[in-house]
């Protein structure tokens, strides 16, 4: 009971007296959390984005001639044997022609006089989307070409190539920056904590000399670090939220295409995780820093 009162008073006094260093640490932690969660958020959304955009993706398998019911079953079986797919559609010449007409809309009059079955029948295969399936799709396409009666396999190669190249590039950039930054910020936080403790080393040593228990010396620091971690993370996450909404606003104007994309902020559990992790890290850092000093 008495110990808790002393502990709280001690912590309060420390934090009040060293508010400059405190602000520094909280700022550092906030910045670190901001940077980390910024990149994590990008990665998080890029994953979803990849999934969402991947849904449009299909392989069009042009066939020599209209497959009969039994052949369709055979195709379906063979396709499923190679890889999981989301959907398989069979499109006959007529359907293809109608679709082209619909796509041309106003200009559909240019099709007048063209025979309704001039387009070949096809199978549309929608693979299960995944961020990294460009090479899988290629292999898939190669496989499909080996099926009997298949003339050609199309899958918007250019579009996919570019799109996935970008997703891939962004992934690498995000991951690398993330790693670089986590390194940097961990280093920064550790460094700052260590230096702050170093400047109070004298006090810690003195406490030890006048007969304070390790717990007595350490608890205020740990509590302090915990609070710093909590506050820093809270500030960082708040800054990120503001930034996130600002970016969304920026994108919504000139880029309506992106406005419809499912950009989401972290759900609560992840926010909680980040905050807890941050305070844990600060506490552990503080603990290990005091440890060395208290070996007196």
């Amino acid at each position, binding site marked *: 009971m*008495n110990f808790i009162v002393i502990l709280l008073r001690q912590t309060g006094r420390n934090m009040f007296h060293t508010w400059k260093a405190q602000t520094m640490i909280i700022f550092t932690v906030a910045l670190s959390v901001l940077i980390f969660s910024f990149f994590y958020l990008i990665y998080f959304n890029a994953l979803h984005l990849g999934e969402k955009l991947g849904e449009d993706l299909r392989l069009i398998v042009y066939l020599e001639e209209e497959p009969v019911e039994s052949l369709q079953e055979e195709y379906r079986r063979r396709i499923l044997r190679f890889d999981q797919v989301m959907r398989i559609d069979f499109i006959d010449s007529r359907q293809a022609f109608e679709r082209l007409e619909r796509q041309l809309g106003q200009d559909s009059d240019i099709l007048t006089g063209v025979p309704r079955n001039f387009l070949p029948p096809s199978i549309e295969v929608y693979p299960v989307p995944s961020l990294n399936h460009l090479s899988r799709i290629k292999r898939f396409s190669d496989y499909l070409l080996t099926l009997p009666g298949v003339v050609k396999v199309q899958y918007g190669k250019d579009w996919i190539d570019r799109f996935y190249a970008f997703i891939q590039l962004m992934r690498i950039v995000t991951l690398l920056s993330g790693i670089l930054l986590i390194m940097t910020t961990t280093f920064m936080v550790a460094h700052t904590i260590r230096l702050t403790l170093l400047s109070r080393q004298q006090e810690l040593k003195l406490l*030890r000399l006048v007969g304070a228990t390790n717990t007595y010396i350490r608890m205020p620091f740990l509590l302090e670090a915990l609070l710093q971690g909590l506050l820093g993370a809270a500030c960082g996450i708040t800054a990120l939220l503001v930034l996130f909404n600002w970016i969304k606003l920026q994108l919504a104007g000139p880029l309506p295409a992106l406005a419809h994309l499912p950009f989401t902020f972290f759900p609560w559990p992840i926010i909680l995780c980040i905050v807890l992790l941050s305070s844990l890290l600060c506490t552990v850092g503080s603990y290990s820093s005091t440890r060395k000093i208290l070996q007196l």
Partner: protein
Amino acid sequence: MIQETSPTSIIIDLIKVTKVYAPDVEALVEVSLSIHAGELVFLTGMSGAGKTTLLRLISRMEHPTKGLVEVAGIDLAKLPQRSIHLLRRRIGMAYQDFKLLNDKTVADNIAIAMEVAYRQPAFIEKRTRELLHQLDMTRKYSTRTGELSRGEQQRVAIARAVANYPEIILADEPTGNLDAETTAKVMELFHQLNQNGATIVIATHDSTIYQQATHRIVTLHAGRLRASAFGSPTAFSDTRPNEDSAPTEEALTS
């Protein structure tokens, strides 16, 4: 001597203690010394003789290279890390380099020694004011110690050492920066604590504070115990400092 006939009351016991600082500085060589509970001992010797080292061994700030150090019946070599605070709370040490926290106030600096022993705030304040009054520093209660004169700092260091009524008080050159008048006040404080039962070891060069005392004087010479003698029988509190002095070293080594 009473102390010598009742060996159970030995509170500080050094047996053949040698301390060698890396690589080859022999600070203490085979020093054996027993101090009884309630004694007041003066530790003298030239600069670099090993006085501070001896005190640091007693408060376990250093480990002896060889030999045994026992304080209050505890063999310090066997005292585990986590129990040191129990020893340290029984010892009050006024360091030669003060070890004050210059950013804190005088009151805070003195309070520290009592706070770690979970004293009540009211007690702490009362005791702090009382000590400052005794050391003639009432006006400096809430001054940052960094803004004090060196002699004032020294008094704060002494106040902190004795604040929590420790059983053992180790004072390392407690009057090096003090004038005769203030020295007398400090010595009065020590004598008063000694009369209340505290064991006190004072390492000092200042012959004026020990030559008239009845107390034991231990002299170190280049790390070796040279002599352990008793001062002149004149009671300290009756004599005025700076008045008369007897030749010291010659008398002691005889």
